[in-house]
């Protein structure tokens, strides 16, 4: 571990390097490095502008608005927020998950598989494949989707079409690509028509085939570069996620499981409505983002990772055959019970993509999807908690309402928050093992971004006003004098000044 690089001593004697913002992640992140006169890294931190205003945005609104309202928190994973909120407000109308009409449960699962599939496809093919196919320190002009489309046209196009297919699943289930109102308190507001089902069935075998190819591709990339891929940004950690009662991989509804770095069980089948008893959040002075930890292990040792790597690590199996076969191969590639390689996030992500494609096919064969029995209600409650596995990891929505159905309290723990410590540790590992002592160049600094990108962090603001988001990297000496400056303008052009 590299905790010693979180806070340096004698900062006044150190040079400061800033990567701001980190590119190919959602939202605004910044990395700062403090270097001594020999360019040895003494401090490395990932700073993230937190999702401030979430709770204020939600409080004071009637609960039934939440599934639509929370989609606007994030332009990247609106369906994840939509479903987590829907699960929470089910409880407000007295409906527990096991009492949801089967059609509603299956439609929500279909919606969620579509969301995870499109999100994972975007991340792998669009944002990460340039690094993985061309190399972390390759010419910057190559590290983009256009270069992938030009040099690997089949892979590039498959990525675009997998993404599109996932979006079409969302559109069919919720009625719209975005702002759809698929899930409502106690159920769903529409089922699939036969035409909609047939439309999705038409291409699903192709999606499964491409997903199988994608798993084979990442396995080949990963295993062709051993031990580098198993060492880069790698940190032994605990992992947390939902699983089914059987211990199988689960995205929509299950109990909380956490395992330690050796594969030992920390907790299992925990009712997520009691998450507050098991997870606390720590605040640190240098970042807006909180650091969640397992109370059983304490602040120092209780941090954990979530997301594809966590889920594939902690589950006992996957209940679709091709993805299960891929999971077994994934686990067997290393010699330890848990796969800690940060770059293995990509591999796990594509195993999940395959699982989504297989699951979508299974669900589309289920006549319940066309049932009209979509909504149920029970006795009103004043508190609701919804937890799902979003593409980037476990997502918690927790609401309290008053007698007028107005939200009085909201608490959200988003996936990227849970990975905050993991991302910081990965940044420190790369800084210490790959950058320390070297003259910093853009290709070398891309290694830090590669480590962060593996987590697919969503630092979302969903605001994309034209003209924003420049990147500026400054090298300042011990006296505070600017030595080097690299600027990426909003039009994408780079300028270096000395």
């Amino acid at each position: 571990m590299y905790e010693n690089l979180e806070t340096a001593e004698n900062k006044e004697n150190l040079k400061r390097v800033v990567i701001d913002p980190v590119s190919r992640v959602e939202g605004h992140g910044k990395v700062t490095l403090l270097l001594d006169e020999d360019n040895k890294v003494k401090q490395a931190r990932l700073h993230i502008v937190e999702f401030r205003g979430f709770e204020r945005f939600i409080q004071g609104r009637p609960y039934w608005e939440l599934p639509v309202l929370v989609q606007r928190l994030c332009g990247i994973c609106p369906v994840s927020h939509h479903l987590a909120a829907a699960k929470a407000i089910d409880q407000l109308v007295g409906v527990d998950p096991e009492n949801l009409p089967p059609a509603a449960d299956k439609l929500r699962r279909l919606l969620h598989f579509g969301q995870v599939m499109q999100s994972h496809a975007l991340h792998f093919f669009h944002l990460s494949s340039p690094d993985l196919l061309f190399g972390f320190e390759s010419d910057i002009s190559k590290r983009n989707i256009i270069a992938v489309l030009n040099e690997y046209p089949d892979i590039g196009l498959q990525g675009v079409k997998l993404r599109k297919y996932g979006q079409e699943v969302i559109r069919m289930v919720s009625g719209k690509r975005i702002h759809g109102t698929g899930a409502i308190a106690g159920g769903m507001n529409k089922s699939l028509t036969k035409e909609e089902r047939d439309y999705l069935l038409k291409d699903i075998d192709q999606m499964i085939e491409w997903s199988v190819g994608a798993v084979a591709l990442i396995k080949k990339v990963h295993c062709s570069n051993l031990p580098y891929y198993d060492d880069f940004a790698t940190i032994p950690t605990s992992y947390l996620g939902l699983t089914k009662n059987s211990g199988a991989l689960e995205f929509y509804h299950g109990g909380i499981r956490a395992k330690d770095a050796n594969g030992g069980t920390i907790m299992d089948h925990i009712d997520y409505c009691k998450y507050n008893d098991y997870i606390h959040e720590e605040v640190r002075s240098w970042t807006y983002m909180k650091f969640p930890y397992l109370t059983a292990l304490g602040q120092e040792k209780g941090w954990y990772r979530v997301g594809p790597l966590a889920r594939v690590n902690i589950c006992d199996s996957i209940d679709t055959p091709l993805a299960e076969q891929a999971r077994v191969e994934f686990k067997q590639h290393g010699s330890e019970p848990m796969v800690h390689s940060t770059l293995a996030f990509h591999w796990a992500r594509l195993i999940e993509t395959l699982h989504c494609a297989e699951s979508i096919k299974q669900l589309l064969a289920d006549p319940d999807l066309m049932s009209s029995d979509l909504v149920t209600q029970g006795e009103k409650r004043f508190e609701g908690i919804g937890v799902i596995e979003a593409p980037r990891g476990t997502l918690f929505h927790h609401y309290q309402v008053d007698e007028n159905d107005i939200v009085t309290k909201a608490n959200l723990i988003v996936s990227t928050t849970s990975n905050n410590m993991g991302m910081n540790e990965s940044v420190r590992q790369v800084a210490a093992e790959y950058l320390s002592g070297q003259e910093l160049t853009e290709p070398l600094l891309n290694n830090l971004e590669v480590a962060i990108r593996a987590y697919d962090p969503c630092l979302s603001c969903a605001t994309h006003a034209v003209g924003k988001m420049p990147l500026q990297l400054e090298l300042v000496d011990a006296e505070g004098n600017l030595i080097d400056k690299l600027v990426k303008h909003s039009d994408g052009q780079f300028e270096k000044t000395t």
Partner: protein
Amino acid sequence: MIKPILVFGYGNLSRGDDALGPLLLEHIEEQCNLEAVEILTDFQLQVEHALDLENRKLVLFVDASVSCKTAFDFCELQPLKDKSYSTHAMSPASVLQVYQAIKKQDPPPAFLLSIQGLSFELGEELSSQAEKNLFLAGQFARQLLNNTDLNYWRQQIKN
């Protein structure tokens, strides 16, 4: 049947003036004949939106812009390999570039209507200035959709 004209407005309705793109679509839906016009919206542009450009005669992207010096701006787009093609939110020009890379052919003529926005915080209402800009941009968009001739659209570009 694919409609020949695509109007794609993007932005987040709950982020103040970022709502300008989707709100202009609402205006168009109320005020214009949509027989030949398809309206699409999303939070932001992404790689798969290149597939929405297939078989179109004209494409109009609509977005909020902090760089806009007047109430609105109108320009023609060319495929451009800017850095946005490697983010979660692409520029319309880079979507055209993706179209070109996928289809191995030129994209349909595409234009960007930028509407000046000032404030983009979560939970904010549309600013009063943005409301005025939206009204003016809406009038302009109506003119465009009443005359979907490529040369006419090009003539509307201010130098």
